């Protein structure tokens, strides 16, 4: 043990060494707890998936995961159950999501570059302001925002949902990016500067290409948050033509006194599927993102 510590670099001493585990209870116990827990956590989701293939009347009598009678009718039924077909709402959601991702990537990384690499007056103050806005509940500013956007005639357009992202209002991503850019060696900036690059060239040709992991985290989280967002879309989009997926989904359980659970579950699965997809594709970035900034 002592020799280990002297040979190993200081970092190694803080890492977990296998010895610690030798006196622990058998691992199968931990595995059983974890597997049971995971099943309990996932059961509602799996049950919803299975129920989307059941007849509505069966949903209320079958608690199991294997449908006794399988139907795929719920998907076409749900797709066309609302005034416009569901593809229309998906399109509205996608426009907002893509606009938000572009906005956050450009605006937040530019702001982060200024905070991480440039000097200007009251930088600490502005940085503190930025951190403060991270904690700001949207409910506090929604009324004046609504009034502003109503004045601009932007209610029932995509703009109230995209423009704030173009203006770097998601402080989380600025913070994430500042942390990341600070980790990029300054020597690279120096070298580029000697080669004649100004700040814009350094930003665009050095910092951006090297920040791909942080940018990916930003894009994935922006996708999931915007796709799932309900509050602001409910407020800014009241015309059924402009409904996004969550707002349209809500009219299912709102409008009809008798909820058609089969089709509703089918469209809920459609609404959740892209999130699962991004989750599986981008797990690496997600975990890193939460570990550095505590995003949810």
């Amino acid at each position: 043990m002592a020799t280990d510590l002297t040979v190993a670099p200081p970092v190694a001493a803080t890492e977990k060494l296998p010895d610690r585990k030798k006196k622990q209870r058998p691992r199968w116990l931990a595995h059983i707890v974890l597997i049971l827990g995971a099943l309990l956590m996932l059961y509602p989701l799996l049950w919803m998936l299975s129920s989307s293939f059941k007849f509505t009347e069966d949903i209320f009598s079958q608690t199991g995961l294997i449908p006794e009678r399988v139907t795929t009718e719920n998907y076409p039924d749900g797709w066309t159950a609302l005034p416009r077909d569901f593809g229309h709402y998906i399109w509205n959601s996608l426009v907002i999501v893509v606009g938000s991702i572009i906005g956050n990537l450009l605006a937040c990384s530019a702001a982060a570059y200024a905070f991480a690499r440039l000097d200007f007056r009251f930088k600490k103050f502005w940085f503190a302001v930025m951190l403060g806005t991270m904690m700001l509940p949207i409910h506090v500013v929604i009324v004046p925002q609504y009034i502003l956007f109503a004045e601009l005639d932007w209610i029932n357009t995509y703009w109230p949902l995209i423009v704030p992202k173009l203006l770097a209002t998601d402080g989380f991503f600025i913070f994430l990016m500042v942390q990341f850019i600070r980790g990029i060696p300054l020597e690279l900036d120096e070298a580029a500067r000697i080669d004649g690059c100004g700040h814009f060239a350094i930003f665009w040709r050095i910092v951006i290409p090297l920040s791909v992991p942080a940018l990916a985290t930003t894009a994935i989280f922006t996708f999931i948050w915007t796709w799932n967002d309900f509050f602001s879309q409910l407020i800014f989009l009241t015309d059924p033509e402009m409904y996004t997926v969550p707002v349209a989904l809500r009219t299912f359980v709102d409008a009809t006194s008798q909820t058609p659970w089969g089709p509703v579950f089918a469209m809920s699965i459609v609404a959740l599927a892209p999130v699962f997809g991004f989750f599986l594709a981008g797990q690496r970035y997600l975990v890193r993102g939460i570990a550095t900034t505590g995003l949810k």
Partner: protein
Amino acid sequence: MSSTLDVPPRERSHGEAPGGASRAASRARRRRSGWLTPYLFLAPWFAGLLFITAGPIAASAYLSFTDYSLIGAPEWIGLDNFQRMFDDPRFYQSLKVTFIYVVVSVPIQLAFALFLAMILDRGLRGLALYRSIYYLPSLIGGSVAIAILWRQIFGSDGLLNQVLRFVGFENPPGWVSDPDYALGTLIILNVWTFGAPMVIFLAGLRQIPTMYYEAASLDGAGKVRQFVQVTLPLLSPIIFFNLVLQTINAFQTFTQAFIVSGGTGGPADSTLFYTLYLYQRGFGNFDMGYASALAWFLLLIVGGLTAINFIAAKYWVFYGD
């Protein structure tokens, strides 16, 4: 300047001593375009501050002293909105509902998160898989689809009651339609999303040097003692971070309550979350002045809680050396 430009780029970056002509040139260039550059990078952010975040905070401060319904000009009414607020039983109800929700769900959620993080931290096989499974609900817990699912599961003929009837309960309550239980179903939903703080705990546990545990165990400390005297103090900054974050998140819960109660906050206002009440006043009745007063009060609460958390942290958070 021209002499340095004649040298091929590669030679320049290698051959010249630092502080040479090119350094001077770049410094000059920075001086020329320098002062404006940061503000160009920050221009969108400043615009956002003015129109989307800080500006609206100031605007809602003004609006909270007015009577305004989007038609005509805001009419100054002084403290009337605040007066009304403190006479409004639904305002108190919404505060009560939100506080119960936060105080009950956040500690349970964090306890689950820490418990599972500690199990996962033992270097088990399949860590990444378990972590993903437990994290998944955090990503979708606030979505409309999940709220709809919750409404079914906890409905009077929902999944839970089918199971309960199967095991012999004759008349289980209709959870979401029963004022005594409706809030409880939303608390369960929030606890279900313990994956996000769990991942943060896991990262924190990794940072605790193994030698502390070895020293403690040499001194004869058992597992429980090690947890109380090594893990908890060393993890306290992370616990604190999670506490602040989850408290603020929980205070802003809206979607789940809106969907489960059909936008009413019912039954009997038992799920009338603060944000839901604000929405009803602002965008149901277009009572923008009153909604702004509610918004400012929310800002004070969130700010106050954060401050309390920070002050309390001085007494129990251990930041090492």
